[in-house]
């Protein structure tokens, strides 16, 4: 910290107090490099194709989570966006005969454009209305493709004969190349989303999700924020769709049906809605579960649905939330001996629990802050407890709860009646 300029240190401190975290670039690269050795060590083509499928699902869930989880846009038409990306890529390689490498970027752009077109009319709408509009959009896209009898999109039987990205390699090497490509893209997208969500732009999205009135009052431009987020989500979706179509050399309209949609919902919610890691964890967990249930194909959806209902009932934050909570608890236990009070404000924030009475825990952040942020700004800056305001993590300045136990202004969200 010694070679930091005061401005940079102040910025770092601000980022910490806003609970931004640094994008874990180096650990991710290390993990990617380690994972990249899997297909060289484990020479089972079936397993590798399964891993590619998981990575593709991770891209899809990541793109969907960006709108539904991060921004709270009730977007239930994401599969249509993914399929549009896939169809655009596939149709270009089939009809124009161009290489899949040239068609893929067009598919990506098509996905972004379609997402913006779909979400644009629903930005103004309240949750459920937006969900219906996007759901209807997806159904219309699906029904139009099914009803198309001209042979352009292949109608209900789907598109076949899409060129692959690695057609000149042998099948098993092409599979491995797909694995490496999707692995790198998946990691890059994850880093991008993480970086985005830990920036003023991402904080704006989260605050819009938690309380629209509060955010507009703070001067956040809802329209621009939502369109940007949707565009990025659509680009990722188009990428996932294009990769899917080239990997399987085709795509069918049943890809947009209720079944795959349910699968995506299960993945995102089981993994953890609105987190960066959640969709990836969910995609892997649910795909592994379906593989375990491979012998009883028809029971799959029933079992997965039951899993989702259980998760919703007992751990609504999903696997990621469960991990975060256990980690926070562990940290709390380990710090008990060092003067840290268990259940202090940091634990409360991590678990998403109701704000704790700041009385007994005031000492905890004091101890922590004095060692962590003593350097530059902390001198005239006594530590304050973190409290949830409308579900929005805030570091309140003068707004300590009154002795008479009056709730602070704005602590009740305006979402519920």
């Amino acid at each position, binding site marked *: 910290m010694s070679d930091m300029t005061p401005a940079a240190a102040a910025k770092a401190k601000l980022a910490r107090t806003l609970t931004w975290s640094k994008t874990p670039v180096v650990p991710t690269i290390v993990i990617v490099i380690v994972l990249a050795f899997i297909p060289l060590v484990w020479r089972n083509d079936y397993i590798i194709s399964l891993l590619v499928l998981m990575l593709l699902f991770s891209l899809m869930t990541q793109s969907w989570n960006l709108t539904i989880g991060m921004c709270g846009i009730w977007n239930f038409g994401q599969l249509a966006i993914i399929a549009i990306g896939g169809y655009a890529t596939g149709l270009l390689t089939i009809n124009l005969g161009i290489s899949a490498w040239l068609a893929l970027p067009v598919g990506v752009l098509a996905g972004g454009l379609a997402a913006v077109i779909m979400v644009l009319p629903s930005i*103004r709408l309240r949750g459920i209305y937006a969900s219906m509009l996007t*759901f209807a959009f997806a159904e219309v896209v699906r029904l139009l493709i099914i009803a198309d009898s001209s042979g352009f999109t292949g109608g209900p039987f789907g598109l076949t004969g899409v060129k692959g990205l690695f057609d000149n390699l042998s099948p098993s090497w092409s599979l491995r190349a797909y694995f490496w490509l999707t692995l790198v893209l998946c990691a890059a997208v994850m880093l991008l989303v993480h970086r985005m969500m830990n920036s003023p732009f991402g904080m704006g999205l989260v605050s819009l999700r938690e309380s629209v009135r509060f955010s507009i009052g703070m001067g956040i431009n809802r329209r621009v924020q939502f369109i940007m987020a949707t565009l990025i989500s659509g680009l990722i979706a188009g990428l996932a769709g294009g990769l899917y179509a080239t990997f399987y050399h085709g795509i069918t309209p049943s890809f947009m049906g209720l079944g795959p949609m349910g699968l995506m919902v299960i993945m995102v919610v089981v993994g953890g809605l609105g987190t960066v890691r959640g969709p990836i964890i969910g995609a892997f967990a649910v795909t592994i579960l379906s593989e375990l249930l491979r012998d009883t194909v028809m029971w799959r959806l029933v079992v997965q649905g039951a899993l989702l209902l259980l998760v*919703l009932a007992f751990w*609504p934050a999903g696997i990621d939330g469960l991990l975060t909570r256990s980690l926070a608890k562990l940290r709390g236990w380990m710090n008990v001996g060092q003067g840290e009070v268990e259940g202090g404000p940091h634990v409360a924030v991590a678990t998403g629990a109701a704000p704790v009475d700041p009385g007994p825990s005031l000492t905890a952040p004091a101890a922590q802050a004095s060692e962590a942020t003593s350097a530059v700004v902390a001198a005239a800056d006594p530590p304050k407890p973190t409290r949830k305001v409308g579900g929005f993590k805030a570091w309140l300045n003068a707004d300590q709860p009154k002795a008479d136990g009056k709730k602070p202004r704005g602590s009740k969200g305006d979402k519920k009646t």
Partner: protein
Amino acid sequence: METLVQALISGLVFGAIYAIMTMGLTLVYGCLRTLNMAQGAFGMVGGYAAWVITTDMGAPPIVGLFVGALAAAGIGILTHFISIKPLVGRKDIDFEMTAYISTLVVAIMFSAAIILLFGARNKAIDPLIEGRLHVFGTVTVAWQQVAVAVVAFICLGGLSLMLSRSRQGLSIMAVAQQFDAAKLMGVPAGRVYWVTMALAGLLGGIAGVLLAPLYFVSPSAGDLPILKGLTVAVVAGLGSIRGTIYAAFIIGLIEALVATYVGSLWSLPVLFALIVVFMIVRPYGLFGKPEEERL
């Protein structure tokens, strides 16, 4: 002229079905604040129950209608207890979104379970009444469609009587309008919840059995009705009973006219485009209240 009359008649018939279909959605949304995505699955289950009773066991179609409706009502109660009740009153979740997701997944689970039980093939089911009614000229109406309209109107009338006269219906309206006040007046909110879901299941089941002879009974038979139901509910404004009836007939007529004059392939896309425009003009529907007011 005759094509126009034909289109208007079929628009009215479909409007009546959409009305009872969407009324289930409206009641559940007004009372439980849940957009029940399983409403289409109720109809699908009702259709299968009617198929089992009439085709497998040889009962007359009217018995099939009753059995289908009752089976769907049972499924409605089941849906409430497995997917909505565990979420009610929780502070750590966004109830509307979570309930939407859980009912959607329940709908998918029902489809999967039906495939397990009956297989994926379409099943044909006999209409309530065979034959066609000749109105004038070349205009004819299938008796089934007449029966559909009659049953639908009986249902709507019975529902409005129930909601305005009976103790149970009044308690549903009370919970929908003011939850806290209703509870303070001694309305058993827990029971009202599952009764509402049973009612929604009943309506969905009747709609499913009525639609079954016109289309087929299949595991995905609930998908199109729920899409139409959602469209009607959006146009009506969620939770508005009066709006639901108007919107159902408006959408039924638009759809029939577009199908007749433009082609049935275009009826859904045109409808969707109209609704997008409509939502931009009136973001909360025909009779919806701008903010959080109910029914």
